[in-house]
């Protein structure tokens, strides 16, 4: 049986780097995708996921409510993305030491898909950028990363009611903007999942 996040977190807080590495292995992909959905670039997301976990290690001294480890990582990722240049500057040396990726036999196909992803994400982010930053963050966490209200509140350290109201405002504005710019005409599908 694998230990749950809070056990790994406690071990990491006690200085167990392998426990922290296990948390990375468990949640790295989730945070990687969240970072991509915030910046629209896979290579940048790869750097950012490293920064998020390095930053998380730096802040391990405070205990967390059990089960809120992943939301907390989302919170750190949100801050890192918000102040990306500063974070990249702070961890520039560590980023330079990241080894080159190993050769991937499926590189060409994967690379094409990723280029398409970036184009699609770029358009979505351009659209989302018309919202105030607070609403963008809530929308990105709740809709694109599928966090429930409580976890989004823990990530952003705001009350659950505030998450609800910001998300509601974000949806209303996006509907308004969508009809104003007629985004269906450019062939984008409409997808959003029910999270309540």
């Amino acid at each position, binding site marked *: 049986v694998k230990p749950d996040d809070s056990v790994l977190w406690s071990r990491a807080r006690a200085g167990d780097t392998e426990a922290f590495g296990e948390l990375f292995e468990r949640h*790295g992909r989730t945070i990687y995708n969240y970072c991509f959905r915030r910046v629209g670039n896979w290579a940048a997301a790869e750097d950012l996921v490293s920064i998020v976990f390095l930053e998380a290690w730096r802040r391990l001294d405070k205990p967390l409510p059990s089960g809120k480890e992943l939301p907390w990582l989302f919170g750190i990722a949100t801050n890192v993305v918000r102040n990306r240049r500063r974070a990249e500057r702070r961890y520039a040396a560590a980023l330079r030491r990241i080894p080159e990726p*190993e050769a991937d036999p499926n590189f060409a196909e994967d690379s094409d898909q990723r280029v398409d992803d970036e184009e699609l994400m770029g358009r979505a982010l351009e659209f989302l950028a018309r919202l105030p930053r607070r609403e963008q963050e809530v929308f990105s966490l709740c809709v694109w990363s599928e966090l429930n209200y409580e976890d989004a509140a823990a990530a952003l350290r705001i009350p659950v009611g505030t998450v609800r109201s910001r998300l509601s405002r974000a949806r209303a504005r996006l509907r308004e903007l969508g009809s104003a710019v007629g985004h269906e005409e450019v062939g984008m599908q*409409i997808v959003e999942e029910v999270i309540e």
Partner: protein
Amino acid sequence: VTDGVYAIPPARDLPSGRLLQLREHLVAEIVRARDSERSPASVRLRGSRRRKIAVLALAALVVVVATASALAVRAFVLHQGFIGLPPQGATPSTPESGELVLHYFGPNPGVHGKSRIWVYTDGRLISLRDADYPEGANSASTGFLEQRLTPEGVELLRSEVISTGLLAHEPAPGGEALPGETEPGYIEIEVRDGDRLVPVERARDVERLVARITDPASWLPASAWQDREIRAYVPSTFAVCYGAWPPAQPIERSRILSLLPAAAGDLLRGRDSMLREGRFVLAGQDLGAVVEYCSDVTIEEARALAQTLDHERLEPFMPASRLSYRFEVPGSNGDMVQIYFEPYLPHGEFACSACG
């Protein structure tokens, strides 16, 4: 559900094998950081050696105090900020190094530009504002200015930030996130909490916090000031940085040095250089990578370098903000090189005076 917006790409794995590679890198970095915290300075010394060092330290202190008293008589204090190098004979700020307690970068209420403020445990409050102040260097920049707080003043300022700001590592809810880099009014605050400097990412009342940090004279009691008089901050060391500007293709260090006047190239060639990489973002637009090389020089070396560059009639660049020159790379398609000087601050870093 039909109230959504654009589709987004599906979640993907990291490229093959990359997750494990990054995990290994992460663990290695953490171990590296932990080891570097155990610097030789923190190794406990044995009794006799400790006593010897204490005696030596006391003797050194006596010498320092005596020298400082003697020098104080002849101290050349500047009451006006300056851009670039200090006038000949100006007395550098002491002590040469200091521990940072608070750092602020952000708006300066009442003026258009940004402010940067650094507060040190020794009481120094150093500021640089893009503003027209009577004590400032010019109408666009104050240059680096210095005031002195008492230990009580430093603690009042620090605890003000701690109490009204919410430190990044606190999981408790409350307050609002400070404006990020891509937003108008971007704010960066770091404050000492125990043995660490931690970023403040949220505040209960951002406006009040900014007002308190940028104008401490408006609320700190008289007892918080050791010397309220504003004077220029005179560094002991400068950084000289050079690289392609505006960001284009990075230019090799050796190539840039070969293009500088011989005396300047020779001086810098013999120095260790630090590679600085970043992005040039203007009004939220990313205009490319910045690659620069920086070396440390004394005031006298900086003066000699600047004289050489002046002598070659290099074009001054952004002279209202910092001592900086640029020139075109011969035979290139208009590629430019910039070389500039920045004063080192007591915590061993330098700031970008021309960044707004």
